[in-house]
Every structure is written in C-alpha cells, then in structure tokens.
C-alpha cells in the first residue's frame, strides 16, 4: 500500500514537471506569436478558434479517424513484417545477404519516389497508396531495430531451450519475444510516430482525405492558423498514443528488462 501510494505520488510529480515543461513551451509560443502576423505565426488564441471551427465542422473527427486507421494498418503490417524479416535474416546467412541490401534500398528511396510508384501501382485509390507509403517507410526502421534487438538476446537461454526441446515457435514466443519487449516498445514507439508522419506525408501527396490532406490544403491556402490547429490535433493524438498506450507498455516492459 505504502509503496503504491508513493509510486503514485512519483507519477504525479513527473506529470506535473512534464506539464510545466510543456506550459513553458506554450508560453514561448504565445510570446513569439505576439511579434508575428497570424498568417506567419498564429497565436494560441487564434489557433484555438480555428480548432473549434474544425470541431464544429465535423471534419476533425472524421479526418483523424481516417488517418489513424491508415496508420495502424500500415504500421502494424510494417512491424509484423519487420519482425518476421529480422528473425528470418538472423537465422540464415542467405536471407541476411539477400534481404539487407534490398531493405537498405527501400530505406534510401525517398518518399517522393514511392508516391510516384504508388500512383503507378495503385492509381488514385484513396487508401492503398497512403498505407503502402506508411508500410514502406516504417518497415526498414522496424527491421533495423528488431535486428539489433535480436543481437542482444541471451544465447545461453536459447541453448537451454534447445536442450530442453522447446519448439522453434516456443523459443521465439517465450524467449525471443520477451527479450525483445523493451526493444519492441522502443521500436513501436519510434515506428508509430514514424508511421504517423508518413501518413501525413502520404495524404499530403496523394489522397483526398485524412489529416495530412487537410493540413496540406490549409497550408497551400495560407490558412496558417488552421495548419497549427491541425498540428495541435496531431499532438493530441500522439500524446494520447504516448501516454495511453506506449507509457503503460513501457512500464510493463520494465518487468522484462529486469
């Protein structure tokens, strides 16, 4: 009991400090905005108004949902394939020799080119192209991270599992996966923010729905306060994701890294 109270107190303190930090950033923004024209740098007040307008319009929720679903789809695909590829390439030199250069290639090709290819392959299909771009951008990151995670796995435990005749699957799920969990969490955290950004970009380039499209439209139409309002939305979504999903995950993962 005593512990859980003091732990909660610590959490509260942390939250307070974090909030204070963010408030300082906010104040800086307010201050900076005073010196600039709203078209250049809108103030929090103007941004708030724009945000409210978006909310009333109803475009806020629908766009966020569209982008979120695309992100989740592309990101989970990428995380899954990244993990599978990492396990595969870790196992055999052949696959490693084959897969690594191709992934390096995928990583190097800039998103612009992917959008060109996406137009060729998927036409103007509204959903496929962004999901594809998210996948393609997130995959190498997931792969590299998982791969380096696999390096850190305790070979002695794997030997133990081999002696005691654990199946390949069991070894993966019960030793590789748990050992990867801390890695996994950091990968997921980087991967999601990556995928989210890629989604924005993809919608920016070749879609007619989603936050990215709205953001780009606002940007091209010089509606700077709308741009900032969308950014606040992005921040809110990612903060929810960070503190609602990743932080609890991270806390759980602490168990494994013990």
């Amino acid at each position, binding site marked *: 009991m005593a512990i859980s109270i003091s732990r909660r107190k610590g959490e509260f303190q942390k939250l307070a400090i974090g909030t204070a930090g963010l408030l300082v950033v906010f104040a800086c923004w307010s201050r900076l905005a005073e010196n600039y024209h709203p*078209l*250049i740098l809108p103030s929090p007040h103007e941004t708030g108004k724009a945000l409210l307008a978006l909310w009333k319009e109803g475009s806020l929720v629908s766009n966020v949902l569209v982008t979120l679903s695309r992100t989740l789809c592309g990101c989970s695909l990428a995380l899954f394939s990244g993990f599978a590829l990492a396990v595969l390439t870790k196992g055999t030199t052949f696959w490693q020799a084959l897969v690594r250069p191709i992934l390096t290639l995928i990583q190097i090709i800039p998103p612009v080119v992917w959008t060109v290819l996406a*137009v060729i392959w998927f*036409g*103007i299909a509204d959903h496929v192209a962004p999901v594809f771009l998210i996948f393609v951008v997130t995959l190498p990151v997931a792969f590299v991270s998982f791969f380096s995670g696999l390096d850190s796995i305790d070979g002695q435990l794997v030997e133990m599992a081999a002696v005691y005749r654990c199946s390949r699957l069991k070894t993966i799920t019960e030793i590789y996966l748990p050992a990867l969990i801390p890695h996994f969490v950091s990968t997921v955290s980087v991967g999601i923010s990556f995928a989210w950004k890629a989604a924005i970009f993809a919608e920016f380039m070749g879609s007619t729905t989603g936050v990215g499209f709205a953001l780009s*439209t606002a*940007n*091209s139409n*010089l509606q700077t306060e709308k741009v900032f309002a969308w950014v606040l939305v992005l921040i809110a979504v990612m903060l929810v994701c960070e503190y609602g999903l990743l932080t609890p995950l991270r806390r759980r993962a602490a168990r494994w890294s013990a």
Partner: protein
Amino acid sequence: EEGRKIFIQSPPTVGVLPLIWVQEQGVLPRGIDLEIIISQDHQRGLSLISSGDLDLLVTGVNVGAKAYNRGIDLQLVNTNIWGIDYLLTSGFQAESWKDLEGRTLSLPLQGGPLDFLARYFLHNHGVDLDQIDFAYLPSNNGARAFQLGRLDAIILPEPMVTITLNNYDQAVLSLDIQEEWGKLHAGEERIPFVGLFVQGGFAKENSELVDLLHQYYQEGVDWVQSHPEAAAELAAQHFGQPAALVQESLGRIHLQVYPQDEARELIELLFTEIMDYYPEMIGGRLPDGDFYF
C-alpha cells in the same frame, strides 16, 4: 547610389522571366542588384516579406490579396499572367462542361483558384457537382495519374499541358479555361493569375525604384514575347525545364502587363465571383485601393 541588393522570390514561372532578363541585362542603376530566389513556398515568401527580408515576391494574385487583407504589408506592382490553364481529357473530347458528368476530374488544390474556376464553370453550365468525382492531387502526380489513364479529366497549367500532350496520345486539349471565362463574362478572356508584389515599406521608401523596375519589367515582357527562343533558354537555365518545351508552352501562356486600372477591374471581376464560392481564398473581401501600387 547606395550598393544594395533587391531580394526577389518567385516560383518557377514565366512570370519571373522578365525580371531575370532585367538582371542579366544589367540595365538597373549602378550598385543595385537583383537576387532572385526560385522557390515554390509561398508561405516562406510571405514570412520573409513580413519580416522585411524580402523586397519583391511573385505569387498568385489571390495569395497576395489574401495576405494583404489579413494585414501583411504588400502591394501589387503588376499582374502578369492572364492565361495558363487548360482542361485535358483522356480519350474523349469534352465539348462542354456537361460532358464531365460522371467522370473523374483532377484538380491541384482544394479551395485554390483552379478549384474555384472548375466549380464555377460546372455550376454555371448546370452540372450537378455531385455528379463529378473530384480528385485533388498535386499537379505532377495528377499529370502522372492522368497519363496512366486513371483520370478522365484534369485541369493543368502550362508547361504541364504541353508535357502531357506530347507524351500521352490519349490526351485531348478539350477546353481553354480562359475562353470559358470569356464565355461567361462578355468575351473577357483575361483571368488575373500571377502578380508581382512589393513589400510595403520598401515600396514607400523606394517608390521610384519600384516604378523603374515595373518599367523594365514591361520591357522584359516585350522581350519575352519577341524572343521566345531566348526566353525559353533562360527558363531552361533557371528552372531546369527543357527549352523546346518552354518555347512550345509559351504559345499557350498569356503573359502581358496592362495598365493598373484595367488590371484592377479584371481582378475585382474575378474576386467578386470568388466571394460567392471561397471568400477565404482572398481574405474575405475585395482588397481596397492601397492594395494596388
């Protein structure tokens, strides 16, 4: 004369060719130099104008008007591009806007000038907007999708039109946007697209210099019209577009400077129509007299 540099930002458009010509001719008074920055980023241009880092800006007339109405200190020196956009169709000839019913039409920017024009025409030709499948794609990706046969129609600016016509044999140059505007406005086929803007403070302090620049600009326009080949060469150098292509596209671009009063009338004609559709696009009202230098 004091040795100073005049900073100009412009997207890669023929509207800046006269200025490049002026720069290369070296006709300006001693010690005055032009520094021309080619950039697509209007936002950046306006930021730099408002912070005083930039003196002149070539950008859309509606962009300038919006900035002006929102309180950014700039003035329109002249309007230079009056015609540049066309409706291309894929594999069929659209005789009128009615023919687009049930088709996919690609436009570059929702809430932008072409979006307005398309909707304006469609509406005025009695087309039900719900019958049109709008696809908002950046021009380059739009053009690609069009050439892959994935779109029925697209409104493109030059030189994108020329490129597409040259490379996609299904492409049909169906409608001239400027002509269409004329059909609805007593034959007036000029649409004010691109203008040259000056930073307000700079204009006040150097009104003679701005006048001079405007004068030279006009000469530059004449030069471009009389030397399409050399002008295309200049564009090739500065925008990286093939000269032959630019030269070909010049034939479909209406580059001209008209007296400010005449220009103002044309601008207000356009803006009045815009007010019914996207008032936001020009900042919610017609710009007042101080907008015009």
